[in-house]
């Protein structure tokens, strides 16, 4: 059921970190995207590209001091960035929910799981603990935790990594938010569990029609899950596309590099793994150039002198002076 109006509309989001005695750091430098109801959007990029900061800014979870946020985040007609903290607090958990990377540290070690689930419902649905407990049980069951009754009374350290993440997913969906943000939810888990959790997320999202923003550095995660993919570099989106299209033909050299560096089973033996040379520390500023220029195999002189502009095509978007369409088998 997609309506034409996006569920969430991020417009030119900028987050600058200020540190005492040091240069201000632009973690997010003009990010814009839309999320429609029921859609799964991927935010992909290396560590340090600003994807996590983006999600924290959306939720209003950045620390009170040391940063400056600009732009607009329109959710159901309201700019979230302009809300007071108590108004934002009302929306978190109820309209937008978030799950994080490390399930063990993300859970309160001295409170039983059951209460950590019911507290969301007690808060937003005005239920008493007694009323909420059976629903919590259902939720745990829904996310695939066996023996949910016992688990309600367990403490986080008594659960395995995969179960903890499932419990966190249950907590996030407790009040049926229309948007869920998942920040690297599987990075801290074993590979086999990763697959399970991703499958669970996919299933839940389809069943409930919740929109999902999936933040990850792992393209494998994106491939199976996201409708639309945004590739971030140094705080700006450099390529956007529908998943099938992007994986089949990517255009930005960075995206190409990311896709090219995935080891492929059917590649000939002895073929070297390609990597992207340099690191994020080599970046040039976006204001006067293309940040990726020092590492780009297709760099032109223009790239170091002029910032590339965002070009919107049907179903794709690109920020590059010298793109190349590469087909990936």
């Amino acid at each position, binding site marked *: 059921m997609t309506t034409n109006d996006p569920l969430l509309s991020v417009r030119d989001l900028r987050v600058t970190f200020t540190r005492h*005695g040091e240069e201000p750091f632009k973690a997010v430098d003009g990010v814009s995207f839309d999320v429609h109801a029921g859609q799964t959007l991927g935010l992909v990029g290396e560590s340090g590209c600003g994807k996590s900061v983006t999600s924290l800014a959306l939720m209003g979870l950045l620390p009170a001091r040391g940063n400056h946020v600009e732009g607009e985040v329109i959710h159901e007609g309201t700019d979230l960035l302009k809300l007071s903290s108590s108004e934002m607090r009302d929306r978190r958990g109820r309209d937008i929910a978030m799950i994080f990377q490390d399930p063990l540290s993300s859970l309160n070690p001295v409170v039983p799981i059951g209460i950590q689930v019911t507290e969301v419902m007690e808060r937003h649905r005005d239920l008493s603990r007694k009323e909420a407990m059976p629903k919590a049980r259902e939720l745990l069951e829904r996310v695939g935790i066996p023996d949910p009754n016992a688990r309600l009374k367990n403490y986080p350290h008594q659960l395995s990594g995969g179960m903890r993440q499932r419990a966190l997913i249950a907590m996030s969906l407790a009040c049926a938010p229309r948007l869920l943000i998942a920040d690297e939810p599987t990075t801290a888990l074993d590979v086999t569990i990763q697959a399970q959790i991703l499958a669970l997320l996919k299933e839940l999202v389809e069943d409930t029609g919740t929109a999902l923003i999936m933040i990850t550095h792992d393209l494998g995660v994106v491939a199976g899950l996201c409708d639309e993919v945004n590739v971030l570099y140094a705080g700006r989106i450099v390529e956007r596309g529908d998943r099938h299209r992007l994986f089949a033909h990517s255009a930005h050299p960075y995206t190409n590099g990311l896709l090219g560096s995935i080891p492929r089973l059917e590649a000939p033996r002895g073929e070297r793994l390609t990597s992207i*040379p*340099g*690191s994020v520390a080599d970046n040039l500023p976006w204001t006067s150039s293309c940040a990726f220029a020092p590492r780009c195999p297709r760099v032109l002189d223009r790239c170091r002198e002029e910032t590339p502009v965002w070009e919107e095509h049907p179903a794709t978007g690109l920020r590059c002076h010298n793109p190349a369409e590469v087909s990936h088998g």
Partner: protein
Amino acid sequence: MTDQQGTENPSTKRGLSYGERRKQRIDELAAASVDETPGVSLYASAWRRLRRNPVFLIGAGITVLFVILAVISPWLAPWDPAATPLLDKVRPQSNPIPGPEPGHPLGGDDRGRDLLSRLLVGSQQTLIVGVMATLFGLVGGITLGTLAGALGGWVDSVIMRMVDVLLSIPSLLLAISIAALAQKPSQWTVIIAIAVIQVPIFARLLRGSLLGQRVSDHVLAARALGVKRGAIVFRHMLPNALGPVIVQATLVLATAIIDAAALSFLGVGNSDDRRPEWGQMLARAQPFIYDHPHLAIYPAACIITVALGFTLMGESLREALDPKSRR
């Protein structure tokens, strides 16, 4: 991390021997894994932050002033602290403590000695007592801690059991017990008693630090490369472990001075007070405290200031070197 082609290994170019090349690589490895910012060591970045921290600056300032004072005080003091220029002014009944007059800005004490001079020179003895006690405690603690942490096994268990027990006794009581063993209590009694209190603290600290190091990456790497145990301990583990020990030593110095004062107050220490010491002066001032509180307040203020200085410095050092409090 980055490139493979990276920096060339200078040792291959210079043609060093195999052993020396190995050592150099180990050292670089050890240094690299402790670094948090490329090219900036932990100590250097800590120092940068400390330079701007007012708490540290005040503490270090006081400490430095105190040490300077302790060194130059005999020349600074107008009178010999053992001399009794005001003796004829002392009247046990009516005027036991001579008040201020020209040449004696703070007046005298009950034996007619110039108070200001005694205060100034007292810094020397106070510093000596504090430093020696801490030094002995440090040496004892480091020895024990290194033995326990480096050797491990049953040596570790036995040593740590004793240390834990010593730590379980309230420190002042322990000090009193040690002091009670002395036939003729003197300044050395105070020093030793306080040193004994500090030994378990340092031992525990060093051992904990070493244990943490043992499983850290750079030590594992060194072991994997076959470096001998002794070398590992002395060249790779100890230098990293010393950081917290130094911080603790500064803090311990503060408490050493205070505990020394407490012991003097209880009656340990020199009966011969020709060489003044602040704790002792404070203790001697007890009988006169009601009518002449200044006799106690001056040495107490000195003790407090110096202890505060060391504490402020130690605390800010600790916070600066603590990787967790980095923001």
